[in-house]
């Protein structure tokens, strides 16, 4: 009799475990939004940087703590500022952004015509030629070029955030 009770009890536990299995199997996958995103040892902007992740890197979120997510990726576990992550895969986000519609055709854009955001620099020749043709001054054209050339170093941005207690440095 006690043996049969034990078997029945085991069956109950097994049944519950199976019942919960689908819920436990749901892992939360997020993606890195921008290249050079920091993976840190702790949920703090001042902790050691374990590595820098590329845009689109898939991470599994294990824990959430304030503005940081603990994630595991490519054999490493660390913390990332949550707003550097997106639930959507890069391709999905790209599709969402491709909104220029109603052109009335079916051809897809040639692969050579598309490129990622960070790889295209400088005022396009077609823009400059058109501006000159329409009588824009050299000063206005140069102003756009200067605007494009202006760069803020990542360390300066980091210092700016730390001083203002912003972003990953916010309390």
């Amino acid at each position, binding site marked *: 009799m006690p043996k049969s009770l034990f078997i029945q009890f085991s069956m*109950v536990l097994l049944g519950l475990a199976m019942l919960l299995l689908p819920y436990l199997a749901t892992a939360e996958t997020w993606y890195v939004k921008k*290249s050079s995103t920091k993976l840190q040892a702790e949920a703090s902007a001042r902790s050691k940087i374990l590595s820098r992740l590329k845009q689109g890197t898939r991470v599994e979120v294990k824990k959430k703590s304030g503005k940081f997510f603990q994630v595991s990726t490519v054999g490493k576990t660390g913390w990332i500022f949550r*707003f550097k992550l997106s639930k959507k895969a890069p391709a999905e986000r790209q599709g*969402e952004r491709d909104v220029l519609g109603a052109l009335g055709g079916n051809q897809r*854009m040639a692969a050579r015509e598309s490129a990622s955001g960070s790889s295209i620099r400088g005022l396009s020749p077609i823009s400059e030629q058109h*501006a000159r043709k329409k009588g824009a001054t050299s000063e206005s054209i140069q102003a756009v070029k200067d605007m494009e050339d202006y760069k803020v170093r990542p360390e300066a941005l980091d210092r700016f955030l730390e001083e203002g207690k*912003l972003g990953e440095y916010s309390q």
Partner: protein
Amino acid sequence: MHKNNLKIFGVSFFCLWVLGLLLWVVPSYSFNLDQFLKDVEKSTQPQPKPRQEELDITIEEPKAPPPEAQQNTGNDGLIGLGQSLGIFDKKTSKILKQSVNTLQALQPIAYKEEKAIGGRLAVEVFSRFGGVYDDPKLLRYINLVGQVVADVSNRPDIEYHFAILDTESPNAFATPGGYVFVSIGLLRMIENEAQLAGVLAHEVAHISQKHALQTLGRSRSLQGLSALTLTVMDKNPGLFDKLIDEVSNVLFTKGLDKNLEFEADRYGREFAYRMGYFPGGLQNFIRKLGKSKEGGNSIFMSTHPSTSERFNRLKKTWNRYRKASLYPVLGKRFFSVFKRPSKS
């Protein structure tokens, strides 16, 4: 007897497990025809598209498609034949035509083309609105604030460029591809860094959500084109002329659709909040702009919805920013960079 008990328990728990599995899976894959038809109809409306961002911002639907979106785009073909033969009723034909239009609307524009349009418009901004305001320290500060909010936007993977315009009229612009402008007149009205972050984030939101390109997407001058590439633009100078004229007219004269401005306000506030700024900066600035004499005379007012409407809409969704008062406004840092002569 024992064996029977075991069987009953085994079968019961297997059934429970299957039930649990179904409860978990079915909602994700259930098909509702009525909802599907509604979705098809909804998807043919112009932008802004509803989307679920990381923090579940609710984006309101545009009320009605503009006339351009409703015009016959020549997709009658088989659907029209089906309707005339009585295979489809009028409503079904309409839904099918809209679906065809939706599929065609997937035509993408690449960043290279977006930047060519935005770069040309950026030259136009400098030409029309006073050129460059020369203050390296202030320019660096604008770039720092702008860059940090762009980094937590929905599109941080492109380069953003920030500039100050030498005009006393309060104004701010964004052109496609990442160009953001703010006038010195507008900066003089700002009271702290949280307000500045809100204003710059509003402009970043126009770029991240591709608002100006959405207007272009409904352009009549692009009808019949299969793709808008640099090659196409290069071979058709007249087409590039028209594109620039149309977007210039929207950005500098008519203004974007009201709903796109409201969307940029909501996202702008959200981006500033993500970065840790007091999220009420943008709405406080909008209220100040509405009350000011300078604001009333600027083209900023003629190209945007009324400041009271913008303020009220932002206020309606303020509840989600609990504990907002704990976030910094950084007034001291703002004035340490942008010193102003004392009023006395």
